[in-house]
């Protein structure tokens, strides 16, 4: 992590065939080596690594471009959203777009993948050229577009005013919500769910929508931490997803960086919490706290109107991956979801019973 940061993942994820390309139409990107973490080093853009206060890992990227622009990033997700997801192989442009997001306070995954969605809408004729008002054509591969339309988005200028609403509202307004790669209207990050079945289940059940962070199944299914699971195996995946989600809820509540979990386990977090607070958790009671947090979040969502029928992936993922080492495989999340609900102790329809809420101390 210190030497390549999270961008160590570009080649790993691409070699495993789950590197979403052109708005999740493909699972591999031919030009990955132009935009990878290694490339950031080899092209001389990386000045040094940097870290959050007090961190011994220091996975951040201190980057300077040939034109003198200097800033932080891109991270793996950013580099992918503006890179392969938009079909763009220009690391310089990707980094510029990233810097603009930093300056303007835009989420880089949402910004990049919304542009990717717009590119597919444009390709299929659902956005007209004259709507671009002399801006660069919104074509996959356009390094001008990713920089230009990020600025448009940030300042709500031209079509940027629509892009600023995110890919779901953009696609829906054009009559094609199925072209937004999102769950609960949050854009999916840099891993095709068809290549990792457990991670796909996490996308569907995350309380935050299309999120990889809060149940990072990539860790066991691709990276082999804490142990290597077969990404295409379905057996045991609901249980793993639940543990990752509950454990992540704890780590988030402690305020620690999730990357500590590549080295620390539940017992370590228990010791840290108890030492810092004089609470008296056991590992089991700490994990239960994570479960309670997860249930509380879901109950909030349910009462706010995000119903269980939003626990789904875009239809694209019912279709098989068309390329790469995982060609021919589709997402099996529909098989896993009922088992997940059951393991969680929820109703078959995905709601949480009053009895369960009382048990959890939520009601």
């Amino acid at each position, binding site marked *: 992590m210190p030497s390549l940061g999270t961008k160590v993942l570009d080649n790993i994820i691409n070699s495993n065939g789950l590197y979403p390309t052109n708005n999740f139409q493909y699972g591999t990107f031919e030009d990955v080596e132009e935009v990878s973490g290694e490339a950031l080093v080899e092209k001389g853009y990386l000045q040094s690594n940097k870290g959050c206060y007090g961190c011994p890992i220091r996975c951040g990227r201190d980057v300077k471009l040939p034109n003198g622009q200097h800033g932080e990033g891109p991270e793996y997700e950013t580099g992918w959203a503006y890179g392969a997801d938009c079909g763009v192989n220009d690391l310089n442009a990707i980094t510029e777009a990233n810097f603009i997001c930093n300056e303007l306070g835009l989420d880089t995954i949402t910004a990049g993948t919304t542009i990717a969605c717009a590119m597919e809408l444009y390709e299929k004729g659902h956005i007209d050229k004259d709507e671009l008002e002399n801006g660069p054509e919104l074509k996959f591969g356009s390094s001008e577009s990713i920089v230009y339309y990020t600025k448009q988005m940030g300042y709500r200028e031209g079509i940027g005013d629509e892009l600023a609403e995110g890919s779901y509202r953009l696609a829906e307004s054009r009559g094609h919500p199925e072209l937004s790669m999102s769950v609960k209207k949050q854009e999916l990050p840099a891993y095709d769910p068809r290549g990792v079945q457990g991670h796909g289940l996490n996308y569907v059940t995350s309380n935050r929508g299309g999120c990889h962070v809060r149940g990072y199944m990539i860790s066991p299914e691709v990276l082999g931490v804490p142990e290597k699971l077969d990404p295409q195996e379905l057996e045991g995946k609901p249980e793993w997803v639940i543990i990752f989600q509950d454990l992540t809820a704890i780590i988030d509540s402690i305020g620690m960086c999730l990357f500590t979990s590549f080295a620390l386990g539940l017992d370590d977090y228990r010791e840290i919490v108890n030492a810092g607070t004089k609470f008296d958790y056991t590992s089991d009671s700490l994990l239960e706290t994570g479960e309670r947090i997860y249930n509380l979040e879901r109950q909030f969502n349910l009462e706010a109107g995000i119903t269980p029928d939003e626990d789904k992936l875009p239809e694209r993922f019912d279709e098989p991956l068309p390329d790469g*080492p995982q060609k021919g495989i589709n997402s099996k999340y529909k098989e896993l979801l009922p088992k997940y609900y059951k393991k969680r102790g929820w109703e078959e329809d995905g709601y949480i019973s009053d009895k369960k809420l009382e048990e959890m101390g939520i009601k």
Partner: protein
Amino acid sequence: MTIKVKFYSLFKINLKSSGEVYEIKNPITISELINKLDNDYDDYFTNKLLNDKGKISPGAIILVNGKNILHLNNLKTELKDEDIITLFPPSAGG
């Protein structure tokens, strides 16, 4: 037969090499490939990919045509003509 080995991440950066192409007469296993690579790279790969019991180091990633050998035949996975073997040291990210 021809097999292609690709180095990424710290392997690529530290060895300053993106990999090797080997012409070999008979099929070899991953174990044998690691030995072959060691000959060219001064025992580097045994140290980085295997633990002291000779098993794959936790987190080390060895792919054959994009599939992790842990789900094939582990170190005994046999290589055939045109196979691409991709090597990564243990990695983390998000």
